[in-house]
């Protein structure tokens, strides 16, 4: 039982990172109908910026939380800048182009980011200095660290804040209006270009935050780390219903839990035929089932013009 609980904790921490990244995919898809494949690499840039800033400040004598705060702010700033300029340069000129064109530029931008990062940071795995010695807590035999709790709680707080923001603020309303129909929203006096830029800003900031969490949790960064993370987060977004903000959160958490439980129990369930390296089979099996039974995802609405 304590092992099961431990797997749940592992899954929730993993899931909160997936969820934060998935939000970036889903918000952009909701408004533009574009799958922004470069989003995973924005997370990577956020992670590596955090790493560099922390390494630079590690010997400065500042208290650890201050260093991390500075690093996180730097990461968020860089990612926001990247996200907005990416939209300007690569997506805005193609907004009226066939659907395939921006998809291909997205893949191009993703590679551009990866290999620019490889040039800047090199191709090695980079270690994150251990600034905070995390304390261990135990609940009913399951252990977790203060860092894990912090990641989970921060992710939840950020997501709650985001939901509230989209529901109540004027910009949030404008975002929802643009999502429903950009042309009509434009006629109602909404500057849709600004709203789209803002969506990229929000998504990139969340991505940067996820990057900070990844380097804190795993203690390492690498120029290719955004690829698999992006793939998983995209899956999570589709699972929850792409374009749907609460859906991305649910999808992320679910995917984290499925992965954790699958790698914990897949070996026993199949009598040792499938090892824990097959956990992705379970994750994608669930995805296929959801898509067959509910093509628009768990929380997605049926939208006739998008499939």
């Amino acid at each position: 039982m304590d092992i099961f609980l431990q797997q749940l904790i592992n899954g929730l921490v993993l899931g909160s990172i997936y969820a934060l990244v998935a939000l970036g995919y889903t918000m952009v898809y909701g408004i533009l109908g574009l799958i922004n494949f470069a989003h995973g690499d924005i997370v990577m840039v956020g992670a590596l910026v955090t790493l560099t800033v922390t390494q630079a400040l590690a010997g400065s004598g500042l208290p650890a939380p201050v260093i991390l705060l500075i690093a996180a702010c730097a990461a968020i700033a860089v990612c926001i800048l990247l996200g907005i300029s990416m939209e300007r340069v690569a997506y805005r000129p193609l907004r009226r182009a066939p659907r395939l064109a921006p998809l291909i530029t997205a893949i191009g931008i993703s590679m551009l980011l990866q290999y620019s990062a490889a040039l800047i940071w090199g191709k090695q795995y980079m270690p994150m200095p251990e600034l905070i010695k995390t304390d261990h807590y135990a609940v009913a035999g399951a252990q977790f660290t203060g860092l894990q709790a912090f990641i989970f709680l921060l992710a939840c707080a950020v997501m709650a804040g985001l939901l509230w923001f989209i529901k109540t603020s004027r910009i949030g309303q404008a975002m929802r209006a643009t999502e429903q129909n950009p042309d009509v929203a434009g006629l109602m006096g909404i500057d849709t270009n600004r709203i789209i830029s803002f969506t990229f800003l929000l998504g990139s900031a969340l991505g940067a935050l996820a990057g900070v969490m990844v380097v804190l949790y795993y203690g390492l960064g690498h120029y290719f780390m955004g690829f698999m993370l992006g793939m998983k987060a995209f899956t999570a977004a589709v699972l929850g219903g792409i374009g749907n903000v609460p859906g991305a959160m649910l999808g992320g958490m679910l995917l984290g839990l499925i992965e954790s439980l699958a790698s914990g129990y897949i070996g026993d369930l199949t009598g040792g035929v499938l090892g824990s390296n097959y956990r992705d089979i379970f994750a994608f099996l669930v995805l296929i089932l959801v898509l067959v039974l509910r093509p628009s995802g768990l929380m997605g609405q049926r939208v006739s013009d998008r499939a």
Partner: protein
Amino acid sequence: MKRRHLLSVVAALALAVIYGCGKEAPPPAPKAAAPAAAPAPEMITVKIGSASPLTGPQAHIGIDIRNGVQLAVEDLNAAGVEIGGKKVKFEMVAEDDEANPTKATTVAQKLADAKVAAVVGHFNSGASIPASKIYADAGIPQISPSSTNPKYTQQGFKTTFRVVAHDDQQGPTLGKFAIEKLKAKSIAIIDDSTAYGQGLADAFEATARAAGAKIVAREHTTDKDTDFSAILTKIKGRKPDLIMFGGIDPQAGPMVKQMVSLGIKAKFIGGDGMQTPNFIKLAGDAAEGMMASMPGLPKDQMPGGKAFVEKYKAKFNAEVELFAPMGYDAVMVFVEAMKRAASADPAKFLPEVGNTNHQGVIGPIAFDDKGDLKNGPITIYVVKGGKWEALETVTPGAPESAEPKAAEKSDAAKK
């Protein structure tokens, strides 16, 4: 009059040398001034291929190998080598196999097409094995500095050699060490699903089982993952006293970190892929007390180790990661075979590679009939105070352990 003529010839030559410098290496000193000089020996260029991952997660280890090869080539050129009466200039052709088996075959074909005389590579067993067929077909001898999967030399190719102990030696050594020295009774095994990691883990498992240890969990991950909390949690539930990992440092680092945060108290041991400075950097404080084996002697106990480490540092301003000394020696083995055969033609010097008896940086190098290193020593290391420290050296095949104490102990046990 005559003298002035000669002077002008020399001056012209000197000019030619100065202008020629930009493009090519300067020709031999203007001997032409001396009348009736013996014809300069014919200069031939011999290409040595180096194939390892130069990009991607394992780039640091691949670049290390390439640097070793480069160092060897530069040393040879500086010393000047004659093969069959002809002066030889060596040239390195370095290719990037991205640690990818498919890319490795492309790279192998590229090297074969470039008519390299010999290849040092590849790093990964998963890359060396598919590439070895292409080298064998082209008749190019191949020495892997690092591939430890036994299959590599068991394919019946005459061209495959390696200068490290293989997993059938390393795995059992680790297994024996775990049972006899660490007194492990229940063991959990994780591998990274690569030819190297799984091969090592399988060999370890067989030895440990035979010695009566209980294998409480056998888990697999991949060589791209960084999250092992689920696997480790499962293992925690089985309460092993030792966890063995077959894989490399980018996984081993976060793995031990997550072990500590899950509160797992078991000991941790792995193979040569994680015995790197990078592992300690990635794992931080969690690295303390973790163990790993490494084929070969400790760098400072290698006959040429200290000088090599210094030379390497002066040249590349970096620490030797792992296999640079093996890469260096591999080139030397090739060149000695060429000298003995008096030819740089692979068809002619290939049989001589098998007859190698070379005192290299890493120690004596000789091959058995399969191309495996004879009596390759294996050293077990432990992380102490943020550094790898040699714990014990074992030479498989040789019944006496390199450490006299251990031999005494086993004698005592027999009595």
